[in-house]
């Protein structure tokens, strides 16, 4: 990989990453350290044009003078259906959210299906209907797609890929390098619902809880916040695989600053808390499909929060932390009585433990 130039604004040289793993493991898809290494060490240097840019949820294109956001995502979910949603909804909402947290109004989506031979038609139809409903709720059009069928035993019944385009909201320019010490970290609502719902839905762990996936479009919330706080809106992300911990670690590395979180401010629903305690998991590492994080300048933070709380679906929004100079590149969480620890990205998927 070519050597990276120091960043003009911060003077920091991004770390050189090399992908040396001899084969692909599950960890590489889990959204944590291994995933990032694959992307930064293999895909980015060989495939992406702007290897020096921090990797965001969407890319910004300039086509014939118009600025357009484009993003793509793939959905590999087992089981296909779970309390609160299904793979089809995840596909639409996931892409809509990637556009939203890039500061773009989602416009259109194209979708591809990889279907396993033997998949019952009514299962497929149910997913397609779910996608249509989710698209309508999110205000996007599905304008095309492609289908392939693979042999029985591959594709876990159905894989879906979506590519979405949108137009940037005026006045919104999100970039991790614009983050400054003193900025506030805003979270839209309780964390861990989706990941724990999926874990429980798989049935291996024999746990029951009253939980549903939080899958939804966060665009209305982003739009509301942008309406009052656009000039102070520095960065946004939807904390999917790898959870809040991974998203904030990525931010910390991209901006070279320290993110300080207060443990008692982070909202976690009972069922998520119980499952995490029993299994020895940390809610900060669990995937979310209907939440987003935003970093907002201190002058705009309270306004942003109030606007969120007054928007439907945003009533549980909360400020969970602040940006500081140190510890540079890391995320630190503090308890109510002053004890603190570093929160890292996961290596791979969160695993239950007994010790």
């Amino acid at each position, binding site marked *: 990989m070519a050597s990276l130039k120091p960043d003009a604004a911060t003077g920091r040289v991004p770390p050189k990453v090399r992908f040396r793993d001899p084969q692909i493991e599950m960890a590489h898809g889990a959204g944590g350290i291994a995933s990032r290494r694959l992307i930064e060490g293999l895909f980015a240097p060989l495939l992406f044009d702007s290897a020096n840019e921090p990797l965001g949820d969407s890319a910004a294109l300039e086509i014939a003078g118009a600025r357009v956001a484009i993003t793509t995502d793939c959905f590999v979910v087992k089981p296909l259906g779970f309390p609160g949603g299904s793979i089809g909804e995840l596909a639409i909402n996931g892409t809509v959210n990637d556009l939203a947290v890039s500061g773009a109004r989602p416009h259109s989506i194209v979708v591809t299906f990889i279907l396993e031979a033997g998949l019952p038609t009514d299962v497929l139809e149910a997913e397609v209907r779910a996608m249509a409903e989710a698209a309508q709720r999110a205000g996007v059009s599905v304008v095309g797609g492609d289908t392939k069928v693979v042999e029985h035993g591959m594709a876990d019944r159905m894989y879906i890929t979506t590519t979405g385009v949108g137009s940037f909201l005026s006045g919104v320019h999100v970039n991790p390098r614009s983050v400054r010490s003193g900025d506030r970290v805003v979270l839209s609502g309780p964390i861990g619902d989706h990941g724990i719902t999926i874990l429980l839905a798989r049935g291996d762990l024999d746990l029951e809880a009253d*939980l549903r996936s939080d899958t939804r479009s966060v665009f209305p919330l982003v739009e509301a916040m942008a309406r009052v706080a656009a000039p102070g809106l520095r960065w946004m992300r939807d904390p999917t695989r790898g959870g809040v911990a991974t998203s904030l670690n990525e931010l910390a590395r991209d901006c070279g600053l320290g993110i300080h979180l207060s443990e008692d401010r982070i909202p976690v629903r009972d*069922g998520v*808390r119980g*499952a995490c305690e*029993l299994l020895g998991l940390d809610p900060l590492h669990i995937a979310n499909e209907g939440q987003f994080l935003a970093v907002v300048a201190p002058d705009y933070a309270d306004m942003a929060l109030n606007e969120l709380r007054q928007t439907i679906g945003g009533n549980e929004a909360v400020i969970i932390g602040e940006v500081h100079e140190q510890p540079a590149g890391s995320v630190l969480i503090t308890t109510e009585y002053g004890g603190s620890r570093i929160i890292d990205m996961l290596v791979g998927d969160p695993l239950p433990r*007994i*010790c």
Partner: protein
Amino acid sequence: MCLAIPGKIVELFPGSQHLATVEVAGVRRKVDLGLLQDDLPISGDWVLIHVGFAMSKISEQDALDQMQTLRILGEDEQAMQEVRGYGLDGIDERKPA
């Protein structure tokens, strides 16, 4: 080895002598009570759960006693400081670290 969590027995499983449904902060799981067979808990009891087995009954009284002991920690010292404030004692105290 060590991850064991307090949970409340919400239902003794019908048709079994040793299974119960236990609830931990909104999550429910079937738990084997076989290790507590000498003194089986009943619905409403709190037990310590480890790898799907109940290891011990949790004594609410002992928990309350512990909290009480901890809350009065330092109260003796506070009382001492007040007394010292009046200059009534001649105790030579090392300065706190």
